[in-house]
């Protein structure tokens, strides 16, 4: 039934975006493919570069400082391959169902299982958001900005971006910020890596100095948690729906996700390489935070390298704070059946915007509490992400195989084999980590 009075500002704004895409598809001319891609990319690149967040970049830097150039370079590439497989399913489900992930879990599996999924999401999101503000504080702290001012500046940027009340504008501004993740690339070149060593690492998956130790397992977990996490699933599916992508756009959504994974992998590997001088000079970086890395790298990378590194940590925290707080808000609004869109007016979408700003505000506040156990939060946040992933992946695989909602866009057999393999792999890595944690003498220290 067509009743124009039922249309919301969300419909109008989304229709404006879709009209540009439709007219581009209908037309001819040079560069149509690239122009169409420009309009349709966003959620995939954002989710991948958003996941190159402050704790992730610190994990990569710790990896570079403790293991240098070797095994972890191809391993990080592999983890982003896994992230692509997971996120492609997410984008496809969003385009085929036009529903967010939380909403689908509640509708298809009921509130009992939905409740558990939400507890996993909100707990890991809150802790991760805290670490993003730690990153913002550490990054700006390098330049002498007081902690309270740094955190406030980060929060103000999130508020300003959200107040655009337009998904398209929000997405483009956040993408603009996310591109600064590339700052880690020049830092890697300033480390003057030996190219044959880098190529050799990819060809041989080595060296792994010291062999398999309990510390290797912890870093393995941290690096996996730096690429596949529950918030990514919830965020990308909701963002795909909010952007208005349809099943016709699935090929571009795949390119978007693959491009994001490739860029994020390159920047992550660059961070490992950037921190590798600390390994060569035997600097103990096991308890370093963002600013300490920048300080420690100054003698080897110079002022420019240290400054870019600190800016990169700030950017990583900021972009992730924007995307993860949005992920919490999407999930909250979908579960409570409220409007869940960045295209809504403040009056219609106030529960959504309130949830978003509360998620960011509470995390920002926690970072400023004196003597808060921030180091532990950074330590465990990626571990929690890995441990919470298997149940989230099972829900995702069930939805991607649900023909009633997915129609012809259900997972193929190869997609299922790869997705199940990833789930089993994450369970195994989590179990090995648990055994090594409880019985630390099983492996060399």
């Amino acid at each position, binding site marked *: 039934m067509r009743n124009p009075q039922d249309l919301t500002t969300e419909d109008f704004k989304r229709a404006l975006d879709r009209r540009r895409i439709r007219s581009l598809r209908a037309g001819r001319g040079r560069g149509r493919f690239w122009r169409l891609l420009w309009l349709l990319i966003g959620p995939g690149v954002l989710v991948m570069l958003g996941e190159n967040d402050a704790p992730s970049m610190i994990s990569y830097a710790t990896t570079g400082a403790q293991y240098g150039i070797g095994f972890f370079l191809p391993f990080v590439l592999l983890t982003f391959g896994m992230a692509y497989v997971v996120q492609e399913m997410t984008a496809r489900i969003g385009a085929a169902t036009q529903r967010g992930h939380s909403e689908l879990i509640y509708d298809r599996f009921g509130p009992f299982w939905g409740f558990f999924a939400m507890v996993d999401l909100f707990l890991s999101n809150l802790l991760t958001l805290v670490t993003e503000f730690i990153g913002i504080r550490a990054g700006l702290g390098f330049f002498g900005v007081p902690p309270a001012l740094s955190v406030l500046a980060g929060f103000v940027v999130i508020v300003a971006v959200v107040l655009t009340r337009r998904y398209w504008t929000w997405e483009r501004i956040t993408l603009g910020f996310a591109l600064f993740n590339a700052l880690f690339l020049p830092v890697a070149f300033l480390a003057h890596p030996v190219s044959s060593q880098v190529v050799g690492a990819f060809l041989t998956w080595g060296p792994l100095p010291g062999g398999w130790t309990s510390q290797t397992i912890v870093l393995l977990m941290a690096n996996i948690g730096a690429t596949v996490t529950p918030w990514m699933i919830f965020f990308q599916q909701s963002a795909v729906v909010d952007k*208005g992508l349809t099943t016709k756009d699935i090929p571009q959504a795949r390119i978007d996700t693959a491009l994001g994974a490739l860029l994020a992998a390159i920047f992550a590997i660059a961070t490992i390489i950037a921190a590798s001088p600390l390994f060569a000079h035997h600097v103990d970086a096991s308890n370093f935070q963002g600013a300490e890395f920048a300080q420690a790298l100054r003698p080897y990378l110079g002022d420019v390298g240290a400054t870019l590194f600190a800016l990169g940590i700030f950017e990583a925290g900021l972009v992730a704070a924007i995307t993860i707080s949005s992920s919490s808000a999407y999930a909250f609004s979908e579960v409570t059946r409220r409007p869940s869109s960045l295209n809504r007016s403040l009056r219609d979408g106030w529960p959504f915007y309130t949830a978003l700003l509360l998620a960011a505000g509470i995390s920002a506040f926690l970072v400023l509490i004196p003597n808060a156990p921030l180091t532990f939060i950074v330590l465990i946040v990626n571990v929690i992400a890995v*441990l919470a992933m*298997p149940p989230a992946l099972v829900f995702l695989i069930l939805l991607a195989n649900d023909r009633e909602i997915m129609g012809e866009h259900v997972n193929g057999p190869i997609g299922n084999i790869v997705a199940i393999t990833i789930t089993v792999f994450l369970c195994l890595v989590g179990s090995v980590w*648990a055994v090594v944690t409880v019985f630390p003498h099983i492996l060399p220290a």
Partner: protein
Amino acid sequence: MNKRENAEPATWVYDVLEPEQLTTAKRMRRFGRQRLSRGTLILLWALRLYVVGMLFVIAYQIWIALSGAK
């Protein structure tokens, strides 16, 4: 959006958006409950126990770290 588009009958919105993309459709149409097989339920419970077990391990790790820090 401009004023002309607001004032006109908003048929262009219906032309551009797919029916399932309209907020009214999303509000009105809900996907029903999926019947979970016994195997799926066992898997979901097993993974829930896995997460709870891992939370204990994390708590243990934090306790060890705090003890070491004192």
